């Protein structure tokens, strides 16, 4: 976890945990993306979101490209799904007071992973 990451800037785990939970709530209520989590155990979804947020913000987690590809390989995720998640992410971050500039940095990180996730 290098100094000066967004993860640090926005308060480390104690603050980011709020973003994660709020992201989790929004995601499950979303009828476009939510169904992907229909049969997934709660602790696994939370684990996934914690790591997701940490790796996008430069926190203490990073998936390799291969891991990401593998983890999503059984899901039929389309560009539309990916776009929708991007919107949810954008909304959550802005709701938690992240600056527009920083949000763009996170979204750019997120976009980098599109080819690994979308089939």
């Amino acid at each position, binding site marked *: 976890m290098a100094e000066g990451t967004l993860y640090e800037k926005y308060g480390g785990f104690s603050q980011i945990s709020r973003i994660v939970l709020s992201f989790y709530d929004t995601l499950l209520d979303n009828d476009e993306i939510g169904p992907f989590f229909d049969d997934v155990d*709660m602790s696994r979804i939370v684990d996934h979101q914690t790591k997701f947020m940490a790796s996008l913000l430069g926190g203490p987690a990073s998936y390799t490209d291969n891991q990401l590809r593998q983890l999503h390989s059984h899901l039929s995720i389309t560009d539309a799904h990916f776009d929708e998640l991007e919107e949810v992410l954008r909304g959550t971050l802005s709701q938690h007071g992240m600056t527009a500039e920083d949000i763009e940095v996170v979204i750019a990180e997120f976009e980098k992973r599109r080819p690994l996730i979308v089939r």
Partner: protein
Amino acid sequence: MTIEAINEQLLRAIGVGVALLDRQTLQFGFRNDTFDEWFGGDAQQTQLQQLFPDLDVNAMQADLTNAGRFTSEIRFKKKRRTLVVALDFTAAEEDLLVLVCQNITRIKELESMIDSYSMMVERNTREIKREKEQVEKLLLNIMPRSVYEEFKTFGVVTPQMYDPVSVLMLDFVGFTDMVASQDPSVTVTELNDIYSAFDRIGEQFGCERIKTIGDAYITVAGLPDPTPDHAKAIANTAIRFVRYLTRRNLSHPHEWQCRIGLSTGSVVGSVVGIQKYVYDIFGPAVNLASRLQEFADPMQITVQDDVANVLKDTFDLKSIGEKAIRGFGNQTIWQLSDSN
């Protein structure tokens, strides 16, 4: 509105699920709004087991008889969200059972998140520890442990005088020609094998290898910990270096011939450099060993007079007379041979 009516209103609207049951039949008598919101479902189940099929009713009755209280936890899905509700049964008067339900979903979600986070952090900590060990191992390769400890604590190393120590300087005969005439990568691989063997031999006699410069190999006895028999240690090491090379030459196509010089004196040891640091030693003993080595014939060991005096009783030494040594004047020098 009567007090009873107000009470009932409150009980209905409260954010905690409340229900009253008959202790014997486990039929619901009253359920507040929150309870119905969570467990209402389509069909109105009127009995506890219908609503919570997984609940261990026998355990519940036993706890209620013993302690008057029973707690449990149930999980269920509402839409796609897993809700976790804590159930708290209390036995009240006249076979009445009070059931209080608290939504602990958020707590469970937070627990999961803390689990996930602490696992990531622990994994990172393990990785950092491993990396630290690697760095330590590398640094210990270039400096003695006591010097490393000082370096780690203070970030600098104070040059330290070691007196007396014995220095061994080894150089290969015709190395430049060898590099030019043969595949350099083969030469370097062989050099690496030989230096590794030298390191192991030196270690046996308590010598600290200081550095190698191309085909020159320098090792010291009596540093960083003083050793009374540093001269013997260095002589033993030198003899084994020659012995090792002789044996190796019998079975390898490339022959390696060395010259060795042994001297005694004081040296200063310190870490040199800031970005690219090396541990090095300086002092007359180092220079003298280097000069003495030049006087040696191939596969021979040349020894300074002072060292020879110490070794005479136990080692095979032969005087090769007085020589003019650059920077050290005229000195009697000796040849050390393997008595075996």
